């Protein structure tokens, strides 16, 4: 384990009465560093909280915001549940998939964009909505999406698409 991870692991463990509670926050930290939960992160987490890697896998796979495969620089998560559907989410999803040329949970060949259809994001008053790197974008139309896409493409930011904190 890298010294940085060891330090973070110790800090997280100190927050809780039981060290195991640090597991998910630790995986979030590793994901922020690596862009996904890598095999190394699973091994490090298992060592940190004294579980087997298989147990860590089982837990990591339960949660939709922990990715076991690399994601793009931009993670676009479009809400597909009822309130967004009533205000045009189906059409928005079709538009985005066509624009990016990828389907649900796929990443563009240039490694820039990961697309996912997700469940209710709790922004139903500004439907249809999406999250871009966990930040909300409200009242999205195909036209506003196209404008955003150009802006994201031009961004040179190296920030993690899946921040832990």
């Amino acid at each position, binding site marked *: 384990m890298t010294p940085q991870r060891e330090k973070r692991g110790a800090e997280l463990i100190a927050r809780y009465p039981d060290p195991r509670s640090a597991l998910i926050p630790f995986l979030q930290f590793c994901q922020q560093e690596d862009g996904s939960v890598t095999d190394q992160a699973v091994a490090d987490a298992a060592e940190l909280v004294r579980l087997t890697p298989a147990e860590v896998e089982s837990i990591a796979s339960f949660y939709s915001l922990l990715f076991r495969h690399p994601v793009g620089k931009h993670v676009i998560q479009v809400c597909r549940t009822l309130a967004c559907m009533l205000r045009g989410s189906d059409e928005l999803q079709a538009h985005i998939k066509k624009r990016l040329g990828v389907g649900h949970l796929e990443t563009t060949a240039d490694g820039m964009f990961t697309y996912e259809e997700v469940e209710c*994001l709790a922004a139903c008053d500004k439907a249809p909505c999406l999250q871009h790197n966990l930040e909300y974008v409200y009242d999205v139309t195909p036209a506003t999406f196209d404008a955003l896409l150009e802006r994201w493409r031009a961004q040179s930011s190296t920030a993690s698409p899946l921040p832990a904190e």
Partner: protein
Amino acid sequence: MATFEPVLTKGFGTLDLTDLAVYRKTGGFDALTKAMRDMTPEAIVNEVSASNLRGRGGAGFPTGKKWSFLPKDGRPRYLVCNSDEAEPGTFKDRMLLENSPFNLIEGLIISAYAINAKQIFIYIRGEFLHGYRTFRKALAESYDAGFVGQNILGSGYSVDIVAHRGAGAYICGEETAQLNSIEGKRGEPRLKPPFPANAGLYGMPTVVNNVETLMYVPHIITRGAPWFAAIGTEKSPGPKVISVSGHVVRPGNYEIPLGITVRELIFDWAGGLNPGRSIKAVQPGGGSSAAIFEEDLDCGVDFESLAAKKTMLGSGAVVVMDDTACMVRSAVTLNRFYEHESCGQCTPCREGGQWVHRMVARLEAGEGSDQDLRILSTINRTITGTNLCALGDSIMPFLQSVMTRFPEEFKAHVTQSACPLRVRKESAA
């Protein structure tokens, strides 16, 4: 409508309540001072019990009663704040967290003091990164100001708050799944009993309360139980934040006195429908609730009135569908949701959820059969009430209610091999 003054949402849109100085100017932390200096924990529990504050997370359980269930056996106790809001149509806790974190912190400390909690955990939905950051910043400032931490306001009572981020799972809003998730496990609900009051977080006595519930506590302490009990109805007292979405002109969160009618909520508060449209169906209590219809609009927005209509207030999420909405398509989105979010522990929920979604999706695609309709109308008895938690019970209510009310629309998807609404729209165009 004109005489009611909002409580939690007062100042939203005009004041920056994420600024501690601004929050203090509105009387913020006065309740904490009163509680810690002048009140015993028992007096706080009694005041909250007398207000008859009922849980705002969905179940509507009386908060004071929940607090009084904790065994007095000397074991450490925990307070968990459920901020894992994910019920389809609900967006009130996110707004409260992002706009008024100090009100929540004040409620957390008073409530923890009332139940003598050793530590507080707030479980914030993983998608609410902004809310998590807002809360963390407010928490650091609250520590600096002496409202959280050691010997709070000289009372001798000390408690810490740990902000714990979720990682994506609707089921973690179920209280025992949430406890497992905090413990670093899969978010699978536990068999009850034992209830969290006896064996909760780390096996210790635990109270799990919703964000909105805890935020009303300081206001009850400052203004008294009779003030709170005088708002709303006798059995559903107080104000409540209702999320209104779907086909209304002004979707949004509205803090209402419980007991106004669904019609008032939709037409007076949320701006009504678009011109020329009529109401087809309304989900009054989130994705898990059975729909009500045009003939039910004079029903009260409160726990009892909606239960009498065989549905529920739930978390207070009202989703409005006008006459352009296809009921089969609407059901598909919700049944897909429950399929996706089932934790998989219980067979009826895991398998039933998948089968129901597949059958409804087949109908929507114009590939359904009469047999699908027959199975869908009887499958309820093998799914509902046969699982560890309420998720399985949420698969059928909406579908059943709209199939009963609009049987011809479901049938037409089979006989026309397509959505009749779409066919009509296309032939008109």
